[in-house]
């Protein structure tokens, strides 16, 4: 059984086509043969009727009442007649003194179909050979007489039947072959046309996987609609499971962080933790919680629905938030990007990546933070440049590793850059840090364009 659906359909259709054409070829050939044979039989029967006049009621034969019309008079023509009875033998001139050899009287048996009904006084067919040894087709009539039965035979060359049959069959088979080719082409076209919805559906599933569409959207063909509905249910279930997982992560965060905060406050009471050992442990737990929650968030985009997230709106919102978080550090944020630029990432992940980078830039900038973005091919490159003191090259490579933190001024937790890098890489992009023209750090993140 072929694995491919189109091969299955092709195999079934091909077998059916070959069988149909073979049956047609045999059927038509048989009909033609009967048609030709019928004409020949009528002519032989006419000759038998003429010769029958030479048989008298008493069984004797009257030579004078027979006529030899062409082609029965020419020797070797293959056309001949013969009368055999108790009263002697009469032969056509074409026979000379030889007999017709009856080879296969039983082959055709009685007539398979006779519009006049079965009758003993009608000629019956047989195969035989003429004196020259060539195949002949014959008819024989038995007449009862007073002295016994008389046989009247008339034969014609087999060739007379086979030549027109052959002449008709060659163009017939050619036509059937052409018909077969045309039908095969039609089958291939039908397969392509008929199976096209499957190709469309597969492309749609790809688009869902790539986040370009949320659901499969097909109104035809009706045979595929149940499958489309089932796939959409599956997509919804996936999405719900993802949302639930995210909800669990958020609940875990809330559940762990609030008691941690209370613990930290308790330890801050003078005398509770004189050597700072307990506070250090709380700090460790906090770092682990943050790290793993960050990772859990970063691990989700592969399965999530990623639609076009407008860049400008998210950058503006983040800048408004950062201006308040760092209200005492008046930094001017200059945004240079097209308003219609969008990336193919989850909006929450866009906030997470850009929020971390902008927050970092804000901490280091002296007066200005330059944010620019442009599309290059399939990617959008977003550059965030501060005019701060910059970093040594070794530190540039180090800070995007988990837990490394150079900034001791704020409440940065040291995971921002590494999470941002992981997220960017999950989307097939990347994060690079470099020293800019004004000496500050330039963080460039590449994300898939939408």
């Amino acid at each position: 059984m072929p694995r491919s659906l189109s091969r299955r359909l092709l195999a079934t259709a091909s077998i059916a086509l070959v069988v149909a054409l073979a049956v047609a070829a045999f059927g038509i050939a048989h009909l033609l043969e009967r048609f030709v044979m019928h004409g020949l039989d009528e002519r032989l029967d006419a000759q038998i009727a003429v010769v029958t006049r030479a048989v008298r009621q008493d069984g004797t034969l009257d030579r004078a009442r027979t006529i030899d019309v062409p082609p029965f008079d020419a020797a070797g023509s293959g056309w001949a007649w013969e009368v055999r009875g108790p009263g002697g033998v009469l032969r056509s001139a074409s026979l000379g003194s030889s007999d017709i050899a009856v080879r296969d009287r039983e082959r055709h048996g009685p007539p398979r179909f006779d519009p006049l009904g079965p009758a003993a006084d009608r000629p019956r067919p047989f195969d035989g050979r003429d004196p020259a040894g060539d195949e002949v087709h014959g008819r024989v009539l038995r007449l009862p007489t007073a002295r016994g039965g008389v046989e009247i035979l008339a034969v014609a060359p087999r060739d007379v039947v086979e030549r027109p049959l052959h002449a008709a069959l060659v163009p017939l088979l050619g036509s059937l072959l052409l018909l077969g080719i045309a039908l095969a082409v039609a089958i291939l076209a039908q397969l392509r046309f008929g199976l096209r919805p499957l190709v469309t559906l597969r492309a749609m599933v790809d688009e869902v996987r790539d986040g370009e569409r949320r659901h499969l959207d097909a109104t035809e063909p009706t045979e595929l609609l149940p499958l489309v509905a089932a796939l959409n249910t599956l997509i919804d279930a996936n999405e719900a499971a993802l949302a639930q997982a995210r909800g669990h992560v958020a609940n875990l965060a809330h559940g762990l962080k609030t008691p941690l905060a209370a613990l930290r406050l308790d330890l801050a009471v003078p005398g509770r933790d004189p050597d700072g050992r307990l506070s250090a442990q709380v700090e460790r737990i906090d770092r682990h919680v943050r790290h793993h929650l960050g990772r859990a968030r970063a691990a989700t985009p592969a399965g999530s629905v990623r639609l076009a997230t407008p860049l400008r709106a998210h950058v503006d919102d983040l800048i408004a938030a950062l201006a308040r978080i760092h209200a005492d550090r008046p930094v001017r944020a200059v945004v240079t990007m097209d308003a219609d630029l969008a990336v193919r990432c989850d909006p929450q992940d866009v906030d997470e990546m850009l929020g971390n980078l902008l927050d970092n830039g804000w901490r280091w900038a002296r007066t200005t933070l330059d944010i620019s973005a442009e599309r290059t091919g399939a990617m959008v490159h977003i550059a965030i440049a501060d005019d701060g003191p910059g970093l040594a090259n070794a530190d540039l490579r180090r800070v995007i590793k988990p837990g490394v933190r150079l900034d001791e001024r704020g409440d940065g937790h040291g995971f921002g850059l590494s999470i941002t890098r992981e997220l960017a890489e999950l989307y097939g992009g990347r994060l690079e840090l470099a020293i800019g023209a004004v000496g500050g750090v330039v963080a460039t993140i590449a994300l898939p364009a939408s």
Partner: protein
Amino acid sequence: MRVLVVEDDPALAEGIARALRAEHFAVDVAGNGEDGGHLGDTEAYDVAVLDLGLPKRGGLSVLAEWRAGGRTLPVLILTARDAWTDKVLGFKAGADDYLVKPFRVEELVMRLRALVRRAAGHAVSVIRAGALTFDAQTGQFEYEGLPLKLTAFEWRVLSCLMLRKGIVIERLALLERVYQGDVDVGSNSLEVIVGRLRRKIGAAAIETIRGRGYRLVDPPCV
């Protein structure tokens, strides 16, 4: 300075209240969104600390309703939700600052003081009035160059007058910002506190405006 803390975890709420009182703040605690929203609507606070995941009503809805009702008090969101999307949503709802749990007490205190100072219109943290200096970042008062020792009530009254120096503060407004909702005024009546302050920073420094309230005299710089 009077703070409203809306936090549903009793241990954390208690810890925050204790730490803020140690820094002289008057603290009211609400354990759910409904109570918190109501307190913020009806009482006078200098700043509010608002959790997001609250029973009965979420913090964002409480905040949005305050802002829709014209309440301008500075609000610091204190939450476990550390995603940037949550921060953006918080600021869009009208928050002034955002702090993620767990946090350092000093960080919370510093941010609350900064919020109160900025709300009073001071861009820098050190405020002067004659020989009196107030560092709104550390909460320290200095008089004639020396640190001034103050009780919690004295500190609340003086910081309130200092942040609005030269302006008459209504007696009722001052009272609201000095006493926690659940504390008996007792011997610490406003008149007694003002009297003690006058002994520490000079009788002329605080003017009594009869029938209205008090004003911290802000002599022009020499």
